[in-house]
């Protein structure tokens, strides 16, 4: 099932996102008042939270132009070297911009 993004559809999508996110903010507290979250569930959640980002990025890196690939590479390297997200993101954008000028 899909929602049209025209008209009020966009607002419905935003509300769905809000409810899901609120459920995650309240859910841990709520569940803990009945059962402690097991280590196995914790491991699943921890592994999943990084994996979802990787899953989003993989097709972007494979299907993107070389500008996109170099941008991601520059971001990763900057992040590994100086561990600050803003310079890392700036390096990526700058790389893509410079590459696409030629």
């Amino acid at each position, binding site marked *: *099932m*899909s929602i*049209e*993004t025209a008209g009020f*559809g*966009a*607002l419905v*999508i935003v*509300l*769905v*996102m*809000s409810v*899901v*996110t*609120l459920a*995650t*903010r309240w859910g*841990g*507290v*709520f*569940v803990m*008042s009945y059962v*402690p*979250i097991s*280590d*196995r569930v*914790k*491991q699943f*959640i*921890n*592994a*999943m*939270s*990084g*994996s*979802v*980002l*990787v*899953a*989003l*990025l*993989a*097709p972007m890196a*494979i299907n993107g132009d070389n*500008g996109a690939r170099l*941008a*991601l590479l520059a*971001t*990763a390297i900057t*992040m590994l070297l100086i561990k600050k*997200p*803003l310079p*890392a993101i700036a390096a*990526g*954008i700058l790389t*893509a*911009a*410079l590459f*696409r*000028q030629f």
Partner: protein
Amino acid sequence: MLDSDAKLHEFNRQTVWAGFKQLVPISVFVIAFGAAFGLAATQSGLDDASIVIMSTLVFAGASQFATLELWGPQVPIATLVITVFAINARHLLMGATLYPWLRQLSPAKRYGAMLFASDANWAMSMQAFSRGQPGMGLLLGGGLALWSFWVLGTWLGIYFGGAIHDPKSLGLDMVMGCFLLAMVVGGKKNLRLLIIWIIAACASLMAYWYLPSNSHVVVGALAGGVMGTLWGEKSNEH
């Protein structure tokens, strides 16, 4: 875990305001991220009102950026729900780890304090509690700081982003990808996580090529999650 009789869990206007001020330096950077989101969302075709409402009500950057990836004339609802849930599932852990102190509050205060939970204010609040200092003011006040600067930044991104005519030649279509990648690379890294991420990436690409469109996020996330339970970790994090 500390579960002392000291009134560490209590908060009032003063401690919330102190928490707000303590998170302001970090929040300045949040403005920049918010602006990047506002700009990226405009490029994805969202109308201005929806973008501001999204930042106001959702207040979870990575999931908002991820939603832009799904944006088109139609958005598949199941994929949207699972993607947002998977990215924000770490909030479940935040609530669970703060529970020893939250449970001493009334339900209204308990759930109220969690409304603005996000990475930075949760981490600072946990640090405070583990040092035996009160942390609820940091959680709520700091959250309010992050939230207000996130919304302000989003608005700035929409307002000034419209002045840019060819975002792609300036590399601005990469804001989202670079943001998400910086989040991945900036987190904890070890061999176990690297293997989990490789599994997630391969599963995502397989799904991207061979399964219905937009299923790759969910498939990759679940594959990574399952791998995480198969290759357990000696637990002492969180």
